[in-house]
Protein backbone atom coordinates (compact mmCIF):
# COMPACT_ATOMS: atom_id res chain seq x y z
CA UNK A 1 0.00 0.00 0.00
CA UNK A 2 1.27 3.44 -0.90
CA UNK A 3 0.66 6.41 1.33
CA UNK A 4 -0.70 9.54 -0.23
CA UNK A 5 2.46 11.67 -0.03
CA UNK A 6 4.42 8.83 -1.62
CA UNK A 7 1.98 8.63 -4.49
CA UNK A 8 2.12 12.40 -4.94
CA UNK A 9 5.91 12.23 -4.95
CA UNK A 10 5.94 9.46 -7.53
CA UNK A 11 3.65 11.43 -9.78
CA UNK A 12 5.55 14.68 -9.51
CA UNK A 13 9.15 13.57 -9.18
CA UNK A 14 9.86 14.75 -12.73
CA UNK A 15 8.48 18.19 -12.00
CA UNK A 16 10.52 18.40 -8.83
CA UNK A 17 13.68 17.51 -10.71
CA UNK A 18 12.75 20.08 -13.33
CA UNK A 19 12.28 22.78 -10.73
CA UNK A 20 15.66 21.93 -9.21
CA UNK A 21 17.27 22.16 -12.66
CA UNK A 22 15.64 25.53 -13.17
CA UNK A 23 17.00 26.64 -9.83
CA UNK A 24 20.49 25.59 -10.94
CA UNK A 25 20.07 27.73 -14.07
CA UNK A 26 18.76 30.78 -12.27
CA UNK A 27 20.92 30.71 -9.13
CA UNK A 28 23.92 32.59 -10.63
CA UNK A 29 21.62 35.33 -11.88
CA UNK A 30 20.20 35.74 -8.39
CA UNK A 31 23.72 35.97 -7.00
CA UNK A 32 24.61 38.58 -9.63
CA UNK A 33 21.49 40.51 -8.65
CA UNK A 34 22.22 40.31 -4.93
CA UNK A 35 25.84 41.36 -5.28
CA UNK A 36 24.90 44.33 -7.42
CA UNK A 37 23.66 45.82 -4.13
CA UNK A 38 26.85 45.00 -2.28
CA UNK A 39 29.43 47.44 -1.05
CA UNK A 40 32.53 45.28 -1.13
CA UNK A 41 35.21 45.75 1.48
CA UNK A 42 38.20 45.39 -0.82
CA UNK A 43 38.46 45.23 -4.56
CA UNK A 44 36.87 41.80 -4.82
CA UNK A 45 33.11 41.59 -4.87
CA UNK A 46 32.98 37.98 -3.65
CA UNK A 47 31.85 38.33 -0.07
CA UNK A 48 28.85 40.22 1.26
CA UNK A 49 29.70 43.39 3.14
CA UNK A 50 26.72 45.67 3.36
CA UNK A 51 23.77 46.87 1.32
CA UNK A 52 24.19 49.88 -0.94
CA UNK A 53 22.67 51.23 -4.13
CA UNK A 54 25.83 53.10 -5.13
CA UNK A 55 26.50 50.98 -8.19
CA UNK A 56 22.94 51.39 -9.45
CA UNK A 57 23.16 55.16 -9.04
CA UNK A 58 26.49 55.39 -10.83
CA UNK A 59 26.44 52.59 -13.40
CA UNK A 60 29.18 54.27 -15.40
CA UNK A 61 31.31 55.05 -12.35
CA UNK A 62 34.06 52.71 -13.51
CA UNK A 63 36.62 53.85 -16.01
CA UNK A 64 36.22 52.35 -19.51
CA UNK A 65 33.29 50.10 -18.67
CA UNK A 66 30.50 52.03 -20.37
CA UNK A 67 32.73 52.64 -23.37
CA UNK A 68 33.21 48.91 -23.78
CA UNK A 69 29.49 48.40 -23.28
CA UNK A 70 28.51 50.79 -26.08
CA UNK A 71 31.14 49.22 -28.29
CA UNK A 72 29.66 45.78 -27.65
CA UNK A 73 26.14 47.02 -28.32
CA UNK A 74 27.24 48.65 -31.57
CA UNK A 75 29.05 45.51 -32.65
CA UNK A 76 26.04 43.38 -31.79
CA UNK A 77 23.68 45.60 -33.79
CA UNK A 78 25.89 45.64 -36.89
CA UNK A 79 26.70 41.93 -36.69
CA UNK A 80 23.00 41.16 -36.26
CA UNK A 81 22.03 43.21 -39.29
CA UNK A 82 24.79 41.69 -41.41
CA UNK A 83 24.18 38.11 -40.33
CA UNK A 84 20.40 38.43 -40.62
CA UNK A 85 20.49 39.82 -44.16
CA UNK A 86 23.07 37.33 -45.44
CA UNK A 87 21.56 34.46 -43.49
CA UNK A 88 17.99 35.09 -44.61
CA UNK A 89 19.00 35.15 -48.28
CA UNK A 90 20.98 31.94 -47.85
CA UNK A 91 18.11 30.31 -45.99
CA UNK A 92 15.61 31.15 -48.74
CA UNK A 93 17.93 29.69 -51.37
CA UNK A 94 18.36 26.49 -49.36
CA UNK A 95 14.71 26.11 -48.43
CA UNK A 96 13.13 27.01 -51.75
CA UNK A 97 15.40 25.72 -54.48
CA UNK A 98 16.99 22.47 -55.57
CA UNK A 99 20.36 23.24 -57.14
CA UNK A 100 23.81 21.81 -57.61
CA UNK A 101 25.95 22.32 -54.53
CA UNK A 102 23.02 22.41 -52.14
CA UNK A 103 24.38 19.63 -49.95
CA UNK A 104 27.80 21.25 -49.88
CA UNK A 105 26.24 24.56 -48.87
CA UNK A 106 24.32 22.87 -46.07
CA UNK A 107 27.58 21.40 -44.85
CA UNK A 108 29.27 24.80 -45.04
CA UNK A 109 26.50 26.28 -42.90
CA UNK A 110 26.66 23.45 -40.38
CA UNK A 111 30.43 23.43 -39.87
CA UNK A 112 30.83 26.76 -38.00
CA UNK A 113 28.27 25.55 -35.47
CA UNK A 114 30.15 22.29 -35.00
CA UNK A 115 33.50 23.94 -34.49
CA UNK A 116 34.82 24.87 -31.06
CA UNK A 117 35.13 28.62 -30.78
CA UNK A 118 38.82 28.40 -29.94
CA UNK A 119 39.51 26.80 -33.30
CA UNK A 120 37.51 29.36 -35.27
CA UNK A 121 38.91 32.28 -33.35
CA UNK A 122 42.51 31.16 -33.62
CA UNK A 123 42.31 30.41 -37.33
CA UNK A 124 40.64 33.70 -38.22
CA UNK A 125 43.14 35.49 -36.04
CA UNK A 126 46.00 33.79 -37.85
CA UNK A 127 44.58 34.89 -41.20
CA UNK A 128 44.24 38.53 -40.15
CA UNK A 129 47.68 38.45 -38.64
CA UNK A 130 49.28 37.15 -41.80
CA UNK A 131 47.37 39.49 -44.06
CA UNK A 132 48.70 42.26 -41.82
CA UNK A 133 45.17 43.51 -41.19
CA UNK A 134 45.05 45.67 -38.06
CA UNK A 135 42.95 44.07 -35.31
CA UNK A 136 40.09 46.23 -34.10
CA UNK A 137 36.42 47.01 -34.60
CA UNK A 138 36.25 45.67 -38.15
CA UNK A 139 37.99 42.38 -37.51
CA UNK A 140 35.66 41.73 -34.56
CA UNK A 141 32.64 42.64 -36.68
CA UNK A 142 33.74 40.27 -39.45
CA UNK A 143 34.22 37.45 -36.94
CA UNK A 144 30.87 38.03 -35.26
CA UNK A 145 28.98 38.18 -38.54
CA UNK A 146 30.69 34.93 -39.55
CA UNK A 147 29.64 32.89 -36.53
CA UNK A 148 26.14 34.37 -36.27
CA UNK A 149 25.38 33.67 -39.93
CA UNK A 150 24.83 29.92 -39.55
CA UNK A 151 22.42 30.33 -36.66
CA UNK A 152 20.29 32.75 -38.69
CA UNK A 153 20.26 30.37 -41.66
CA UNK A 154 19.09 27.46 -39.50
CA UNK A 155 16.36 29.50 -37.80
CA UNK A 156 15.00 31.04 -41.01
CA UNK A 157 15.31 27.83 -43.01
CA UNK A 158 13.25 25.86 -40.51
CA UNK A 159 10.55 28.50 -40.67
CA UNK A 160 10.48 28.80 -44.46
CA UNK A 161 10.36 25.03 -44.90
CA UNK A 162 7.30 24.79 -42.68
CA UNK A 163 5.38 27.53 -44.50
CA UNK A 164 2.36 26.44 -46.50
CA UNK A 165 3.18 27.05 -50.20
CA UNK A 166 -0.52 27.23 -51.01
CA UNK A 167 -0.72 30.67 -49.39
CA UNK A 168 1.69 32.07 -51.95
CA UNK A 169 -0.07 30.23 -54.75
CA UNK A 170 -3.33 31.75 -53.61
CA UNK A 171 -1.77 35.22 -53.66
CA UNK A 172 -0.59 34.70 -57.21
CA UNK A 173 -3.97 33.32 -58.25
CA UNK A 174 -5.39 36.58 -56.98
CA UNK A 175 -3.11 38.48 -59.37
CA UNK A 176 -0.47 39.59 -56.89
CA UNK A 177 2.83 40.38 -58.55
CA UNK A 178 5.85 38.36 -57.32
CA UNK A 179 7.03 41.43 -55.41
CA UNK A 180 3.65 41.87 -53.74
CA UNK A 181 3.50 38.18 -52.89
CA UNK A 182 6.92 38.33 -51.34
CA UNK A 183 6.34 41.50 -49.33
CA UNK A 184 2.82 40.77 -48.16
CA UNK A 185 2.76 36.98 -47.80
CA UNK A 186 6.22 35.42 -47.74
CA UNK A 187 8.06 37.93 -45.62
CA UNK A 188 5.42 38.26 -42.87
CA UNK A 189 5.17 34.48 -42.68
CA UNK A 190 8.94 34.12 -42.40
CA UNK A 191 9.22 36.98 -39.91
CA UNK A 192 9.18 34.89 -36.70
CA UNK A 193 12.10 32.83 -38.00
CA UNK A 194 14.01 35.94 -39.03
CA UNK A 195 13.30 37.55 -35.66
CA UNK A 196 14.47 34.45 -33.81
CA UNK A 197 17.67 34.38 -35.85
CA UNK A 198 18.29 38.08 -35.28
CA UNK A 199 17.69 37.81 -31.54
CA UNK A 200 20.04 34.87 -31.32
CA UNK A 201 22.69 36.74 -33.30
CA UNK A 202 22.43 39.71 -31.01
CA UNK A 203 22.81 37.58 -27.91
CA UNK A 204 25.69 35.55 -29.36
CA UNK A 205 27.57 38.60 -30.57
CA UNK A 206 27.04 40.62 -27.42
CA UNK A 207 28.19 37.78 -25.21
CA UNK A 208 31.09 36.42 -27.24
CA UNK A 209 34.42 36.36 -25.53
CA UNK A 210 36.44 33.50 -26.99
CA UNK A 211 36.41 34.36 -30.70
CA UNK A 212 36.63 38.07 -29.94
CA UNK A 213 39.73 37.62 -27.81
CA UNK A 214 41.60 36.28 -30.85
CA UNK A 215 40.51 39.08 -33.15
CA UNK A 216 40.30 42.18 -30.99
CA UNK A 217 43.86 43.39 -30.61
CA UNK A 218 43.66 46.23 -28.11
CA UNK A 219 39.95 46.86 -28.61
CA UNK A 220 38.00 46.07 -25.45
CA UNK A 221 34.44 44.78 -25.74
CA UNK A 222 32.25 44.37 -22.68
CA UNK A 223 32.99 40.65 -22.17
CA UNK A 224 36.69 41.44 -22.55
CA UNK A 225 36.35 44.18 -19.96
CA UNK A 226 34.73 41.71 -17.57
CA UNK A 227 37.47 39.18 -18.22
CA UNK A 228 40.18 41.75 -17.65
CA UNK A 229 38.57 43.01 -14.47
CA UNK A 230 38.12 39.49 -13.12
CA UNK A 231 41.87 39.31 -12.54
CA UNK A 232 42.07 42.51 -10.52
CA UNK A 233 38.62 42.58 -8.94
CA UNK A 234 35.31 42.98 -10.76
CA UNK A 235 33.57 46.30 -10.07
CA UNK A 236 30.03 46.09 -8.69
CA UNK A 237 28.81 47.93 -11.78
CA UNK A 238 29.43 44.80 -13.84
CA UNK A 239 26.71 43.10 -11.79
CA UNK A 240 24.42 46.06 -12.39
CA UNK A 241 24.85 45.74 -16.16
CA UNK A 242 24.40 41.96 -15.99
CA UNK A 243 21.18 42.29 -14.03
CA UNK A 244 19.87 45.10 -16.22
CA UNK A 245 20.47 43.06 -19.39
CA UNK A 246 18.65 40.13 -17.83
CA UNK A 247 15.64 42.24 -16.84
CA UNK A 248 15.48 44.01 -20.20
CA UNK A 249 15.62 40.68 -22.04
CA UNK A 250 12.84 39.18 -19.93
CA UNK A 251 10.68 42.29 -20.39
CA UNK A 252 11.25 42.25 -24.15
CA UNK A 253 10.30 38.60 -24.43
CA UNK A 254 7.21 39.10 -22.26
CA UNK A 255 6.19 42.13 -24.32
CA UNK A 256 6.72 40.13 -27.51
CA UNK A 257 4.56 37.36 -26.12
CA UNK A 258 1.80 39.80 -25.24
CA UNK A 259 1.84 41.46 -28.66
CA UNK A 260 2.02 38.11 -30.44
CA UNK A 261 -0.78 36.74 -28.29
CA UNK A 262 -3.04 39.70 -28.96
CA UNK A 263 -2.44 39.46 -32.71
CA UNK A 264 -3.20 35.79 -32.70
CA UNK A 265 -6.32 36.53 -30.71
CA UNK A 266 -7.41 39.20 -33.16
CA UNK A 267 -6.99 36.86 -36.10
CA UNK A 268 -9.14 34.02 -34.84
Amino acid at each position, binding site marked *: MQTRPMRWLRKNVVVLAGVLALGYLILPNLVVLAFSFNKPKGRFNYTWNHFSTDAWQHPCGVADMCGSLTLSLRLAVYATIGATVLGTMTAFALARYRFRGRAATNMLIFLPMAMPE*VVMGASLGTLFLNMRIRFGFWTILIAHTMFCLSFVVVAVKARVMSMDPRLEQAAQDLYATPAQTFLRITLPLAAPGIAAGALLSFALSFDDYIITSFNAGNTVTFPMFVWGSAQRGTPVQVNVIGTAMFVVAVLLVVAGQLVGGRRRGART
Partner: protein
Amino acid sequence: MTAATAPPPTSPAPATVPAAPRRAAGRRRLTPYLLLLAGVAWLLVFFVAPMVYQASTSVQTGSLDEGFKVTWHVATYWDALREYWPHFLRSLLYSGIATAACLAIGYPLAYTIAFRAGRWRNVVLVLVIAPFFTSFLIRTLAWETILADQGPVVSFLNTVHVLDVTSWLHITQGDRVLATPLAVVCGLTYNFLPFMILPLYTSLERIDGRLHEASGDLYATPFTTFRKVTFPLSLPGVVAGTLLTFIPASGDYINAELLGSTNQKMIGNVIQSQFLRVLDYPTAAALSFILMAAILAIVTVYIRRAGTEELV
Protein backbone atom coordinates in the same frame (compact mmCIF):
# COMPACT_ATOMS: atom_id res chain seq x y z
CA MET B 1 18.64 27.92 -30.60
CA THR B 2 15.26 26.36 -30.61
CA ALA B 3 15.38 26.46 -34.31
CA ALA B 4 18.83 24.93 -34.48
CA THR B 5 17.24 21.55 -34.24
CA ALA B 6 13.66 22.08 -35.05
CA PRO B 7 12.12 21.85 -38.43
CA PRO B 8 8.74 22.73 -36.90
CA PRO B 9 6.01 20.16 -36.70
CA THR B 10 3.73 21.46 -39.44
CA SER B 11 3.34 19.69 -42.76
CA PRO B 12 6.60 19.21 -44.64
CA ALA B 13 5.67 21.28 -47.63
CA PRO B 14 6.99 20.52 -51.10
CA ALA B 15 9.61 23.15 -51.41
CA THR B 16 9.31 24.30 -54.96
CA VAL B 17 7.02 27.18 -55.80
CA PRO B 18 4.49 26.62 -58.62
CA ALA B 19 5.71 26.27 -62.17
CA ALA B 20 7.04 29.56 -63.40
CA PRO B 21 6.40 30.88 -66.87
CA ARG B 22 8.95 29.66 -69.37
CA ARG B 23 10.73 32.88 -70.07
CA ALA B 24 11.58 33.20 -66.40
CA ALA B 25 13.08 29.72 -66.29
CA GLY B 26 16.63 30.82 -67.06
CA ARG B 27 16.53 33.51 -64.44
CA ARG B 28 15.02 31.14 -61.92
CA ARG B 29 17.90 28.74 -62.34
CA LEU B 30 20.27 31.53 -61.34
CA THR B 31 18.19 32.82 -58.43
CA PRO B 32 19.42 30.39 -55.75
CA TYR B 33 23.03 31.15 -56.60
CA LEU B 34 22.44 34.89 -56.44
CA LEU B 35 20.75 34.51 -53.07
CA LEU B 36 23.59 32.36 -51.80
CA LEU B 37 26.38 34.50 -53.15
CA ALA B 38 26.95 36.89 -50.26
CA GLY B 39 26.46 34.47 -47.39
CA VAL B 40 28.52 31.68 -48.88
CA ALA B 41 31.27 34.07 -49.94
CA TRP B 42 31.44 35.40 -46.38
CA LEU B 43 31.84 31.91 -44.96
CA LEU B 44 34.36 30.90 -47.61
CA VAL B 45 36.55 33.92 -46.98
CA PHE B 46 36.26 34.17 -43.21
CA PHE B 47 35.70 30.56 -42.20
CA VAL B 48 37.08 28.15 -44.80
CA ALA B 49 40.07 30.21 -45.91
CA PRO B 50 41.29 30.68 -42.31
CA MET B 51 41.04 26.93 -41.77
CA VAL B 52 43.11 26.24 -44.86
CA TYR B 53 45.52 28.95 -43.87
CA GLN B 54 45.82 27.46 -40.43
CA ALA B 55 46.58 24.07 -41.89
CA SER B 56 49.56 25.65 -43.61
CA THR B 57 50.55 27.57 -40.48
CA SER B 58 50.71 24.35 -38.51
CA VAL B 59 53.56 23.07 -40.71
CA GLN B 60 55.48 26.32 -40.74
CA THR B 61 58.58 27.19 -38.78
CA GLY B 62 60.13 30.54 -38.02
CA SER B 63 59.83 33.33 -35.54
CA LEU B 64 57.90 36.54 -35.20
CA ASP B 65 60.85 38.67 -36.32
CA GLU B 66 61.96 36.63 -39.31
CA GLY B 67 58.48 35.58 -40.35
CA PHE B 68 57.09 32.08 -40.74
CA LYS B 69 57.71 29.81 -43.73
CA VAL B 70 56.11 26.56 -44.77
CA THR B 71 58.75 23.91 -44.14
CA TRP B 72 56.44 20.90 -43.76
CA HIS B 73 57.57 20.67 -40.20
CA VAL B 74 55.12 17.91 -39.23
CA ALA B 75 57.04 17.32 -36.01
CA THR B 76 55.08 20.24 -34.54
CA TYR B 77 52.12 17.87 -34.33
CA TRP B 78 54.08 15.18 -32.50
CA ASP B 79 55.64 17.66 -30.12
CA ALA B 80 52.25 19.24 -29.44
CA LEU B 81 50.64 15.87 -28.82
CA ARG B 82 53.48 14.65 -26.62
CA GLU B 83 53.44 17.73 -24.51
CA TYR B 84 49.72 18.39 -24.29
CA TRP B 85 48.02 14.99 -24.45
CA PRO B 86 46.87 15.29 -20.81
CA HIS B 87 45.07 18.51 -21.73
CA PHE B 88 43.35 16.82 -24.64
CA LEU B 89 42.30 13.92 -22.51
CA ARG B 90 41.09 16.22 -19.76
CA SER B 91 39.08 18.33 -22.22
CA LEU B 92 37.31 15.31 -23.66
CA LEU B 93 36.74 13.83 -20.21
CA TYR B 94 35.39 17.02 -18.62
CA SER B 95 33.16 17.86 -21.54
CA GLY B 96 31.94 14.27 -21.73
CA ILE B 97 30.98 14.26 -18.06
CA ALA B 98 29.43 17.72 -18.36
CA THR B 99 27.38 16.54 -21.35
CA ALA B 100 26.09 13.53 -19.42
CA ALA B 101 25.26 15.76 -16.46
CA CYS B 102 23.46 18.21 -18.77
CA LEU B 103 21.37 15.37 -20.14
CA ALA B 104 20.53 14.11 -16.65
CA ILE B 105 19.63 17.57 -15.38
CA GLY B 106 18.12 18.94 -18.57
CA TYR B 107 15.84 16.05 -19.48
CA PRO B 108 13.49 16.38 -16.48
CA LEU B 109 13.27 20.12 -17.05
CA ALA B 110 12.59 19.77 -20.79
CA TYR B 111 10.01 17.07 -19.98
CA THR B 112 8.36 19.30 -17.40
CA ILE B 113 8.16 22.22 -19.84
CA ALA B 114 6.78 20.06 -22.62
CA PHE B 115 4.18 18.03 -20.71
CA ARG B 116 3.61 19.32 -17.22
CA ALA B 117 4.08 23.09 -17.22
CA GLY B 118 0.64 23.96 -18.58
CA ARG B 119 0.18 27.71 -18.68
CA TRP B 120 3.59 28.22 -17.10
CA ARG B 121 5.27 26.82 -20.18
CA ASN B 122 6.28 30.13 -21.75
CA VAL B 123 7.39 31.57 -18.44
CA VAL B 124 9.68 28.63 -17.79
CA LEU B 125 11.02 28.76 -21.34
CA VAL B 126 11.88 32.42 -20.89
CA LEU B 127 13.62 31.59 -17.62
CA VAL B 128 15.71 28.97 -19.41
CA ILE B 129 16.78 31.39 -22.15
CA ALA B 130 17.03 34.60 -20.12
CA PRO B 131 20.34 33.83 -18.35
CA PHE B 132 21.91 34.03 -21.82
CA PHE B 133 21.46 37.75 -21.68
CA THR B 134 23.62 38.19 -18.64
CA SER B 135 27.12 37.78 -19.98
CA PHE B 136 28.28 34.22 -19.37
CA LEU B 137 31.51 35.58 -17.91
CA ILE B 138 29.54 37.40 -15.22
CA ARG B 139 27.56 34.26 -14.47
CA THR B 140 30.68 32.14 -14.29
CA LEU B 141 32.18 34.67 -11.90
CA ALA B 142 29.00 34.29 -9.83
CA TRP B 143 29.86 30.61 -9.46
CA GLU B 144 33.11 31.71 -7.88
CA THR B 145 31.02 33.45 -5.24
CA ILE B 146 28.65 30.50 -4.82
CA LEU B 147 31.43 27.95 -4.44
CA ALA B 148 33.67 30.23 -2.37
CA ASP B 149 35.67 28.47 0.34
CA GLN B 150 33.77 29.91 3.28
CA GLY B 151 30.45 30.12 1.44
CA PRO B 152 27.23 28.39 2.54
CA VAL B 153 27.39 25.75 -0.20
CA VAL B 154 30.85 24.52 0.73
CA SER B 155 30.14 24.56 4.47
CA PHE B 156 26.94 22.61 3.90
CA LEU B 157 28.70 20.02 1.74
CA ASN B 158 31.35 19.81 4.43
CA THR B 159 28.85 19.27 7.23
CA VAL B 160 27.09 16.43 5.42
CA HIS B 161 30.50 14.94 4.53
CA VAL B 162 29.91 15.04 0.79
CA LEU B 163 33.31 16.63 0.34
CA ASP B 164 34.98 13.67 2.07
CA VAL B 165 33.51 11.37 -0.56
CA THR B 166 34.42 13.67 -3.45
CA SER B 167 37.96 14.16 -2.13
CA TRP B 168 38.30 10.41 -1.93
CA LEU B 169 37.23 10.29 -5.59
CA HIS B 170 39.87 12.95 -6.32
CA ILE B 171 37.35 15.36 -7.82
CA THR B 172 37.76 17.84 -4.99
CA GLN B 173 40.62 18.62 -2.68
CA GLY B 174 40.37 18.98 1.08
CA ASP B 175 37.52 21.25 2.03
CA ARG B 176 37.61 23.28 -1.18
CA VAL B 177 35.40 23.06 -4.24
CA LEU B 178 36.93 25.92 -6.20
CA ALA B 179 40.07 25.07 -8.15
CA THR B 180 39.07 21.41 -8.46
CA PRO B 181 37.74 19.28 -11.33
CA LEU B 182 34.30 19.30 -9.71
CA ALA B 183 34.08 23.08 -9.97
CA VAL B 184 35.13 23.08 -13.63
CA VAL B 185 32.67 20.36 -14.59
CA CYS B 186 29.94 22.15 -12.62
CA GLY B 187 30.66 25.35 -14.50
CA LEU B 188 30.69 23.59 -17.88
CA THR B 189 27.42 21.84 -17.06
CA TYR B 190 25.84 25.09 -16.02
CA ASN B 191 27.08 27.07 -19.01
CA PHE B 192 25.88 24.65 -21.67
CA LEU B 193 22.68 23.39 -20.02
CA PRO B 194 20.35 25.59 -22.14
CA PHE B 195 21.94 24.13 -25.30
CA MET B 196 20.76 20.73 -24.06
CA ILE B 197 17.33 21.78 -22.84
CA LEU B 198 16.12 23.60 -25.95
CA PRO B 199 16.61 20.80 -28.51
CA LEU B 200 15.24 18.29 -26.00
CA TYR B 201 12.21 20.46 -25.48
CA THR B 202 11.53 20.92 -29.20
CA SER B 203 11.65 17.19 -29.87
CA LEU B 204 9.57 16.33 -26.79
CA GLU B 205 7.00 18.97 -27.59
CA ARG B 206 6.41 17.42 -30.99
CA ILE B 207 5.36 14.07 -29.52
CA ASP B 208 1.67 13.35 -29.98
CA GLY B 209 0.05 13.15 -26.54
CA ARG B 210 -2.26 10.40 -27.78
CA LEU B 211 0.72 8.07 -27.97
CA HIS B 212 1.06 8.34 -24.20
CA GLU B 213 -2.65 7.58 -23.77
CA ALA B 214 -2.42 4.63 -26.13
CA SER B 215 0.55 3.27 -24.22
CA GLY B 216 -1.32 3.66 -20.94
CA ASP B 217 -4.41 2.00 -22.41
CA LEU B 218 -2.23 -0.96 -23.29
CA TYR B 219 -1.32 -1.34 -19.60
CA ALA B 220 2.16 0.12 -19.81
CA THR B 221 3.39 1.60 -16.55
CA PRO B 222 4.46 5.26 -16.74
CA PHE B 223 8.06 4.12 -16.69
CA THR B 224 7.54 1.67 -19.55
CA THR B 225 5.77 4.40 -21.49
CA PHE B 226 8.77 6.61 -21.00
CA ARG B 227 11.25 3.90 -21.95
CA LYS B 228 9.40 2.57 -24.97
CA VAL B 229 7.60 5.64 -26.31
CA THR B 230 8.76 9.00 -25.04
CA PHE B 231 12.50 8.48 -24.91
CA PRO B 232 12.89 6.87 -28.36
CA LEU B 233 10.82 9.65 -29.90
CA SER B 234 12.97 12.28 -28.22
CA LEU B 235 16.23 10.78 -29.53
CA PRO B 236 16.81 13.42 -32.22
CA GLY B 237 16.70 16.02 -29.45
CA VAL B 238 19.08 13.96 -27.33
CA VAL B 239 21.56 13.70 -30.20
CA ALA B 240 21.34 17.38 -31.11
CA GLY B 241 21.54 18.43 -27.46
CA THR B 242 24.56 16.30 -26.65
CA LEU B 243 26.40 17.60 -29.71
CA LEU B 244 25.51 21.23 -28.99
CA THR B 245 26.81 20.71 -25.45
CA PHE B 246 29.84 18.54 -26.07
CA ILE B 247 31.40 20.47 -28.95
CA PRO B 248 31.56 23.93 -27.39
CA ALA B 249 32.38 22.47 -23.98
CA SER B 250 35.42 20.61 -25.30
CA GLY B 251 36.93 23.81 -26.65
CA ASP B 252 35.98 25.98 -23.68
CA TYR B 253 38.64 27.52 -21.52
CA ILE B 254 36.69 30.09 -19.51
CA ASN B 255 35.45 27.64 -16.89
CA ALA B 256 38.85 26.02 -16.44
CA GLU B 257 40.45 29.44 -16.14
CA LEU B 258 37.97 30.96 -13.68
CA LEU B 259 36.91 27.93 -11.63
CA GLY B 260 39.92 25.64 -11.94
CA SER B 261 43.58 25.76 -11.04
CA THR B 262 46.60 25.02 -13.23
CA ASN B 263 45.85 21.32 -12.77
CA GLN B 264 42.52 21.65 -14.54
CA LYS B 265 43.71 23.46 -17.67
CA MET B 266 41.95 22.26 -20.77
CA ILE B 267 43.17 22.27 -24.35
CA GLY B 268 41.42 25.58 -25.00
CA ASN B 269 43.63 27.21 -22.37
CA VAL B 270 46.71 25.88 -24.11
CA ILE B 271 45.65 27.07 -27.57
CA GLN B 272 44.73 30.46 -26.19
CA SER B 273 48.02 30.97 -24.38
CA GLN B 274 50.10 29.63 -27.29
CA PHE B 275 48.35 32.06 -29.59
CA LEU B 276 48.00 35.16 -27.45
CA ARG B 277 50.88 34.91 -24.97
CA VAL B 278 53.61 32.59 -26.25
CA LEU B 279 52.96 33.70 -29.84
CA ASP B 280 53.86 30.22 -31.08
CA TYR B 281 51.40 30.18 -33.95
CA PRO B 282 52.40 26.83 -35.50
CA THR B 283 51.82 25.00 -32.22
CA ALA B 284 48.51 26.79 -31.66
CA ALA B 285 47.45 25.87 -35.19
CA ALA B 286 48.49 22.25 -34.81
CA LEU B 287 46.65 21.98 -31.49
CA SER B 288 43.45 23.42 -32.98
CA PHE B 289 43.71 20.99 -35.84
CA ILE B 290 44.12 18.01 -33.55
CA LEU B 291 41.15 19.20 -31.47
CA MET B 292 39.05 19.67 -34.59
CA ALA B 293 39.98 16.24 -35.92
CA ALA B 294 39.22 14.59 -32.59
CA ILE B 295 35.83 16.25 -32.37
CA LEU B 296 34.90 15.47 -35.97
CA ALA B 297 35.87 11.82 -35.42
CA ILE B 298 33.85 11.55 -32.21
CA VAL B 299 30.85 13.31 -33.71
CA THR B 300 30.88 11.15 -36.85
CA VAL B 301 31.01 7.92 -34.88
CA TYR B 302 28.34 9.19 -32.52
CA ILE B 303 25.95 10.21 -35.27
CA ARG B 304 26.45 6.86 -37.00
CA ARG B 305 25.68 5.03 -33.78
CA ALA B 306 22.70 7.21 -32.95
CA GLY B 307 21.45 6.82 -36.49
CA THR B 308 20.23 10.34 -37.07
CA GLU B 309 21.43 12.26 -40.04
CA GLU B 310 18.96 15.08 -39.86
CA LEU B 311 20.72 17.53 -37.64
CA VAL B 312 20.52 20.69 -39.62
